[in-house]
């Protein structure tokens, strides 16, 4: 089932590996089918060279396997949680352990918006969730990761379209988009933005966030109703 979506997720996973931000099997990619409420995700621990569309796993919004002979990614329930909350707004999600973003996750800090590259894709600071409690880790580790991202965006007054990624404390980045391919693109951006922000702080220890009016302008020209970036 979902042959077309399988192909999309397969291609997105290949594109993710081509970015060079993934070591070994330290990533997972999924794509969501709004009509059926099911999503397709990469299998756990399988090297991308060995992933084929038929090895991808179809899951429901509880993270249970609906079709597939392989085990889905260990983080499947996190993806399920994101689609359960935001399935009307996003159609693809990605998780990696890309090193620059991970170090922000480990420091427990939001990535401050220091410039326009960041503002073009992430409208505001990229949030880092709180740590899970011992009970949460024990009872619902992967589900809670999604809950924490969803709650944090809501608390910030952000929506998953203008803020297309978040950091899970101690773990690493998640990114999402209208489909799996866009989620991969956003993840690549997030890693780049994380790198630039780290280096920015090294160059200027007292650096301030970019002014809000600059963010507004950049985000608007890219995504606003009269946006003029790109081709018509």
């Amino acid at each position: 089932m979902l042959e077309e979506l399988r192909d999309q997720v397969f291609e997105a996973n290949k594109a993710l590996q081509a970015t060079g931000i993934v070591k070994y099997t330290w990533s997972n990619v999924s794509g969501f089918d709004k009509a059926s409420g099911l999503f397709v995700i990469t299998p756990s621990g399988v090297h991308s060279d060995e992933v084929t569309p038929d090895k991808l796993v179809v899951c429901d919004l509880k993270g249970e396997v609906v079709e597939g002979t392989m085990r889905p990614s260990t983080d499947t329930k996190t993806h399920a949680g994101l689609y359960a909350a935001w399935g009307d707004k996003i159609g693809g999600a990605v998780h990696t352990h890309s090193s620059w973003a991970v170090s922000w996750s480990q420091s427990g800090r939001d990535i401050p918006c220091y410039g326009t590259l960041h503002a073009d894709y992430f409208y505001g600071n990229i949030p880092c969730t709180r740590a899970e409690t011992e009970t949460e880790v024990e009872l619902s580790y992967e589900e809670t990761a999604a809950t924490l991202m969803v709650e944090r965006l809501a608390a910030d007054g952000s929506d998953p379209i203008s803020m297309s990624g978040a950091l899970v404390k101690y773990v690493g980045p998640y990114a999402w988009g209208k489909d799996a391919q866009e989620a991969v693109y956003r993840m690549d951006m997030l890693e780049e933005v994380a790198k630039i922000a780290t280096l920015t702080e090294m160059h200027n220890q007292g650096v301030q966030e970019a002014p809000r009016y600059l963010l507004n302008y950049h985000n608007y020209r890219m995504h606003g109703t009269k946006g003029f970036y790109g081709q018509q």
Partner: protein
Amino acid sequence: MMLKELREKVYEANMDLPKHGLVVFTWGNASELDRERGLFVIKPSGVDYDQLKPEQLVICDLDGNVVEGDLNPSSDTPTHAYLYKMWGDKIGGVVHTHSTCAVSWAEAGRSIPCYGTTQADYFYGEVPCMRGLTAEEIEEAYELNTGKVIVEGFEGKDPVALPGCLVRNHGPFTWGKDAAAAVYHAVVVEEVAKMSRDAELLCLAAGKKPEDILAPQYLLDKHYMRKHGPNAYYGQK
């Protein structure tokens, strides 16, 4: 020629080191043990990776004596030999590199604290930095004593749950069930060395203490167990 299959495996593992960006020039070596025969295959000393051929690899015994091979084995051979001698029932491959980020922790004389799950997936705690060798130890038998210092530093630690370490002022040594696993763990150590460095810088820049960002023990337990415990659910059955 002995151990033809093992030569191929060790050759591939050595070639993976520059491919993963862990080694420049000839600054690395990988080996693998043949448990039944009590012999291991290791890279020859100072041979460029682009010149290396499987038949140039050297076979040694657990005292580091050459059993087969025309070239000198890696100068770190006695370290590999000692690790196999002491831990040969638990490990089957050893790798040494001078990968930049890991070396800088070794030079700082610091263990890499566990700040997150990337590390916890493979290391059940910090990547430990060993004590420095004394002048006498260096003079007497530097490479053998490097192995001894590692084994000494692992007293009360399990080399399976902590598949690598930093040798002070020197660099990372990693191991695993075979040479390929040891290479994998060398990649892990370099990645977490980079991540932990930046996590500390970001933490200090925000006026926090590095102790405050250590991953809690229950999270280490969860990540290590979901990958390696009896009820592990990472990977395929």
